[in-house]
C-alpha cells in the first residue's frame, strides 16, 4: 500500500500541463466550439503536435504500435486534459483506433490508422437507433450480402459528429437469423457514400448531434471488421478502452475552481457567508469521494484486472456529481450562474451552466446508471440476478 503518485507520473502531469498552456489559445477554443470537437485547421495542428508527443498511443502494447506504458499514464493524461477541457482524442482515438488495431485486417490498419493519427480521418459512432438505446443489441439497421460487399438499410440516431466526420463506425445486423448479440458486424461507412443522409438534432446544452439514414448504401467487403457477425465483442472492446479515464475528477473540480474564482472577484460577500462556505466544504467532500472511486478503478485496470463493478461505480459517481456540483454552483453564483455561453457576461464561457445542461447524457449514456447499479449489485456484490 502506498497512495503516493510516484515522481515520474507527476513529472508527466507537469509535462502535459505545459503542453496545454502552449496550445490552449482562445482561437483554438473558438474553433472547437464551432465544430463540436471535430478537427478544424487549428486543432489539426494541435493534434499533430499531440501525435508527435506519442501520448495518444503511449499505453498501447508495442505490437499494436504503442509504447507499452502503464495505463495510469492514460489516466493522468485524461485528468489533466479534462481539467482544461482540451481535446485529447475523441472517440476516434479512444475507441475506433484501438479496435482497428486489435481486430482489423492488415489492409484496414494500413488504410485507416495513419489517417487517424494525423487527424485526416475522423469517425462518428453509429450504434444507437431509435429503438435500440440501452438495449443496444436489439439494433435493426441491416446489411444484406451483395456481390463484393454489403447493402445497408436502416436508421441511426445520436450519431454525434456525423456531419464533421469522414466515416461512420456502423453497428449493423448482418445475420438476421442469429441470436440478438450474435448477428452484428461493425462496418466502416464513408459519410459521403451514396444513400447516406445526415440530419442535425439540436440538444439543450447547445451540442449538436445527428440522425443518420442509410438507403441501399454499398459497403465493400474490405470495410467489414472481422470477425463477420462478431461485432458485439468489438463494440464491447471499444467501450473498454474508454474505461481507464472514464470519469475524471478534474473537470468536476474545475467547476468548483471556476465558481470560487468568480466569487473572489465578483462576490466576496457571498464567499464570506458561512452557509456558502459550508456548501463548498460539502462539495469538496463529494469531490474526494468521487476521486477515490475514479483512482480505484484506474489502478485496477492498470493492473489488467477486470472488475466491472468498479468502473460502474466511477461512472455513476462522476455523472451524478456533475449534476449536483453544477446545480449548486449555479445557485451560489446567483443569476450570473444562469447565463449561457453565448452571453459575454457568462462565467468562464458559461462552463458551469453548460455542464449542468449536459449532465444528463453522462447518466443515461455509456450504459445507463440504472444498469450500472445492477452491474455493481450482481457482479461486484454477488446479488442474485
Amino acid at each position: 500500500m502506498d497512495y503516493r503518485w510516484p515522481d515520474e507520473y507527476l513529472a508527466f502531469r507537469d509535462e502535459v500541463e505545459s503542453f496545454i498552456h502552449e496550445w490552449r489559445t482562445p482561437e483554438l477554443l473558438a474553433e472547437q466550439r464551432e465544430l463540436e470537437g471535430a478537427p478544424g485547421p487549428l486543432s489539426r495542428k494541435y493534434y499533430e503536435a499531440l501525435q508527435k508527443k506519442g501520448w495518444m498511443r503511449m499505453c498501447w502494447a508495442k505490437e499494436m504500435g504503442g509504447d507499452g506504458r502503464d495505463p495510469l499514464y492514460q489516466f493522468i493524461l485524461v485528468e489533466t486534459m479534462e481539467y482544461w477541457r482540451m481535446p485529447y482524442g475523441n472517440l476516434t482515438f479512444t475507441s475506433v483506433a484501438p479496435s482497428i488495431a486489435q481486430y482489423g485486417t492488415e489492409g484496414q490498419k494500413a488504410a485507416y490508422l495513419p489517417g487517424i493519427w494525423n487527424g485526416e480521418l475522423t469517425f462518428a459512432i453509429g450504434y444507437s437507433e431509435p429503438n435500440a438505446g440501452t438495449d443496444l443489441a436489439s439494433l435493426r439497421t441491416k446489411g444484406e450480402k451483395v456481390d463484393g460487399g454489403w447493402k445497408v438499410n436502416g436508421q441511426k440516431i445520436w450519431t454525434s459528429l456525423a456531419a464533421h466526420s469522414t466515416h461512420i463506425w456502423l453497428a449493423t445486423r448482418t445475420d438476421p437469423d442469429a441470436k440478438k448479440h450474435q448477428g452484428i458486424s461493425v462496418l466502416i461507412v464513408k459519410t459521403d457514400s451514396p444513400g447516406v443522409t445526415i440530419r442535425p438534432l439540436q440538444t439543450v446544452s447547445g451540442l449538436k448531434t445527428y440522425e443518420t439514414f442509410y438507403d441501399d448504401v454499398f459497403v465493400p467487403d474490405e470495410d467489414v471488421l472481422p470477425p463477420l457477425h462478431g461485432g458485439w465483442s468489438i463494440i464491447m472492446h471499444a467501450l473498454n478502452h474508454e474505461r481507464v479515464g472514464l470519469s475524471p475528477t478534474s473537470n468536476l473540480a474545475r467547476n468548483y475552481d471556476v465558481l470560487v474564482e468568480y466569487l473572489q472577484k465578483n462576490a466576496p460577500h457571498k464567499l464570506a457567508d458561512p452557509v456558502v462556505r459550508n456548501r463548498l466544504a460539502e462539495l469538496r467532500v463529494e469531490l474526494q469521494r468521487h476521486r477515490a472511486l475514479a483512482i480505484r478503478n484506474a489502478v485496477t485496470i492498470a493492473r489488467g484486472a477486470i472488475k466491472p463493478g468498479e468502473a460502474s461505480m466511477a461512472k455513476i459517481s462522476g455523472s451524478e456529481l456533475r449534476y449536483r456540483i453544477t446545480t449548486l454552483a449555479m445557485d451560489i453564483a446567483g443569476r450570473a450562474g444562469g447565463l449561457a455561453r453565448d452571453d459575454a457576461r457568462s462565467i468562464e464561457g458559461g462552463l458551469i451552466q453548460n455542464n449542468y445542461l449536459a449532465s444528463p447524457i453522462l447518466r443515461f449514456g455509456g450504459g445507463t446508471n440504472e444498469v450500472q447499479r445492477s452491474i455493481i449489485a450482481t457482479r461486484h456484490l454477488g446479488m442474485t440476478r
Partner: protein
Amino acid sequence: MNPDLSETQSLLQTTMRQYLETEIPFDRVREHEEKRVADAELWKAMAGQGWLGIPLPETVGGGGAGLVEAGIFVHELARRAVVVPGAEVMTAAVMLARHADGDESEILAALVDGNAIVVPAHLEAADDLEKVDAAVDAEGRLAGAKHYVDYADFATHHLVTARGTEGLGLYLVERSAPGVSTEALRSTGRTPQAIVTYRDVPARRVAGEAAVGQLIDLARTFASTQILACMEVSLEQTVAYTNVRVQFGQPLAAFQAVQHHAANMCMHVESSRFLVYELLDALEDGRASSDDAALVKASLSRAVPEVTMLGHQLHGGQGLIEENDLYFFTIRGKDRALAWGSAEECLAILARDVETPPRWL
C-alpha cells in the same frame, strides 16, 4: 499509487478476522454491551497475540509497524463490534511513542503486554473539541472534567489534554489515583463511556500543544476507520440476507430497486475504504493535514447513517430485532459518527479554507 494491502498487511487482516470470528460469538458481544463493560479477556488474549503493540517500536516489544497496520487492527475489531478500546489505545500509544517529549518506553512496554491501558480524555462539557479548560497547576495537579471518555474505567491511565504552566499539552494520569471519579453514560453505541472528573490529581506532562492537534487527527482517523468497518459489515449482511429472503416468489436481491439500494451502499463503502486508508498512509509520514482528517471524517460520518439505514430498509422487521446482528453496526456506526467531530463539525473545519483548489490527482 497502490491502494491495496501488502501481503503482510493482508495476513494481519485475515488472521485477526478469522480469530475474532471463531473466538468471539456475537452473543459474547451482547453480554458486554448489556453490562457496558469491556471484554477484559479478549484484551488479554490480544496482548498474547502481540496485537496491542502493532505500531510501537520493537525496542518496547511492539510490532514496529505503521498506522496502516494500526488501522487494520482497529478496522477488524470494529467489524466484530467487540467491546474493547482498540481505537483509543492505538491513539494513545502512537501519541506516546511518536509525539511525546521524553522517553515513554516503560509505559509503552506495559501497553504491549496489556498491563497498561491508556485512553485519551479530551472533550469537555462545552462539547467543543477546540476548547480545553482542564488545568494543571505548578505542582502538577490536574483539575477539570472530561466528557464522553471511552473506556474510562477499563483504562489504567488517561491521556488528558489540559493547560499547564507550559501551556496546552498532554498529561498522563492514573485512573486509580485519588480524585478521579467517573459517571457512566448510556450512549447510542452501547460501549462504556463516562464523564470523568479530576480533582487535584497528579498529572505528568508528556507532550506539548502540537500533540493535542495530532491526537485529535489520529483519534478522528481511527473513528473513521471504525465507521468504515460498520458500513462494510452492514452491506455484507444485507447482501447475504437479500440473497436468501424470498418474497413474491424470488429472492429480494433479484429486484432491481433492491439492487440499486445495495449499489448505493457499496459506493459509500468503496469510496470510504480508499479515503480511510489513504489518510492512514498519509498520516504515517506527515503528508496529511488536519483538514484531510476532517474531510474523511465528514464524509464517513455522513455516509454511515445512509448505509446502515438502507441496510435496515432491505432487512425489514428482521433487521430491527436484537437477535439479528445488524444493529451492532447501526449503533456503533452512528456513535462513531458523533465522536471526535461530527459531520457538521468537520465540515465547519473544512469551511475555513475553501479557497485552495481541491485535489484531483
